[in-house]
């Protein structure tokens, strides 16, 4: 019996060794929660024989991992932060790949009447006026930064809000769980919302303002700063991401018949 255990342990210890090329890519939770990565990663493996290891983190952490040289490239959606990342010499360049959009989720009754607003900023003002519970990511992610910029457009400052404004400091899924539990308003990317399994009494209340478009960009980590990063593989992956294969996969990706992403890379 003991020999059997030993044999089992040795096999255990040996699993996980040796594969061809592999690259570490930090992506945002919203991208991963959309399920698109489950379509793209196997296709990349098939076409390029390249194993993409996804690190699913918030935009803030993704940029940090890139700056430290712990990943080979990042795929995020927060333009200002990306430009700062490039200015600091952490990445070689920024390539826009695709976009999706943010939506406002809230209680089905829409107590604040955000659904009838003319713009995203007005929808937020209505929620603030009604003091309806609002869950904020509060984690310095791309989605959080977007939300803050919209409050700014609405001429409101979240720092001065009472306790109807709840910054949970969590990922998209965890924040949606909180909102579902409190029947609160929340801003989410459409993909995470459609894929979310615990909707409760929540519904989509507002969408469509162009300011809510959410541009994803691909940034390879600078090999001059971190000599060990696999820059050639990062460039190969970029070539694939802007190819017609990727274009078709991204544009055809649907959840419940709804298109989520629009490919807009300059080929």
């Amino acid at each position, binding site marked *: 019996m003991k020999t059997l255990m030993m044999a089992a342990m040795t096999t*255990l210890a040996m699993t996980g060794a040796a594969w061809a090329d592999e690259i*570490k890519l930090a992506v945002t939770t919203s991208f991963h929660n959309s399920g698109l990565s489950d379509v793209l990663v196997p296709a990349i493996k098939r076409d390029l024989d390249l194993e993409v290891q996804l690190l699913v983190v918030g935009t803030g952490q993704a940029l940090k991992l890139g700056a430290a040289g*712990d990943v080979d490239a990042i795929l995020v959606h927060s333009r200002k932060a990306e430009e700062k990342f490039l200015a600091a010499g952490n990445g070689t360049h920024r390539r826009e790949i695709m976009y999706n959009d943010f939506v406002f989720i809230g209680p089905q009754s829409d107590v604040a009447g955000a659904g009838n607003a003319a713009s995203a900023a007005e929808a937020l003002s209505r929620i603030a006026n009604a003091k309806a519970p609002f869950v904020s990511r509060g984690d310095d992610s791309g989605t959080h930064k977007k939300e803050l910029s919209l409050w700014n457009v609405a001429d409101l400052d979240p720092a001065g809000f009472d306790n109807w404004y709840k910054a949970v400091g969590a990922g998209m899924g965890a924040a949606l769980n909180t909102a579902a539990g409190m029947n609160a308003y929340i801003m989410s990317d459409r993909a995470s919302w459609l894929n979310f*399994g615990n909707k409760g009494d929540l519904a989509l209340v507002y969408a469509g303002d162009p300011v809510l478009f959410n541009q994803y960009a691909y940034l390879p980590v600078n090999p001059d700063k971190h000599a060990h990063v696999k820059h050639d593989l990062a460039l190969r992956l970029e070539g694939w991401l802007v190819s017609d294969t990727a274009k078709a996969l991204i544009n055809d990706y649907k959840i419940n018949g709804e298109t989520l992403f629009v490919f807009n890379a300059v080929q």
Partner: protein
Amino acid sequence: MSDLWGGLSQAFYMLFSLDADLVEITLRSLQVTLTALVIASLIALPLGALLAVRRFRIRRLTIAVLNALMGLPPVVVGLIVYIMLSRSGPFGVFGLLFTPTAMIIAQVIIIVPLIASIAHQALRELWSDYHDLLISMNTTHAQRMKTLLWDGRRALLTAALAGFGRAIGEVGAIMVVGGNIDHHTRVLTTAIALETGKGDFALALALGFVLIAMAIAVNLVIHWLTQTEKEGRW
């Protein structure tokens, strides 16, 4: 409540159909935690014995610190290990970050204080019984420690199992240093966190039940292999 039943039935379904992903992450959980447990025990058990038999100047302080570190927040350990292993950190050249090895390192740090504290507590009692005998036999420190470790093995097993329990259910540290990469560093606990984030509570619970079942199975196997709780032995 319906999620709970959904989770239970899904757990049974996945177990009996031997779902390939489930088997993979379960084996990886075992691989990481058992390796961490063996390494941590090799450090912590002799340390516990040393603290029991030797009187040195900072002994009290060491014991107090070890006891305090039992409550070490895993996410802090994760962050520290991350900074150490990061490419811009002191051990970056080894490229260990986001590998199972990094997860093992983090878990060793988390459970060494726990195992050492419990081991020391148990061996101290034993030492008070053995003290006069071992001193009068003019034994060396190493011999005393060996005797204590051997004769206290049942209590030390409990210490090790407590360490196993803490490591197998831990998520904060391995999420940071492992990165929860599919087919690479994903284990049961990080998969549970991921599915909870997606709002798929039934699947998250199913994985949770598998984790609990596995912890029970490992404990049973260890008790059976070491023949504890048998008539005439204790």
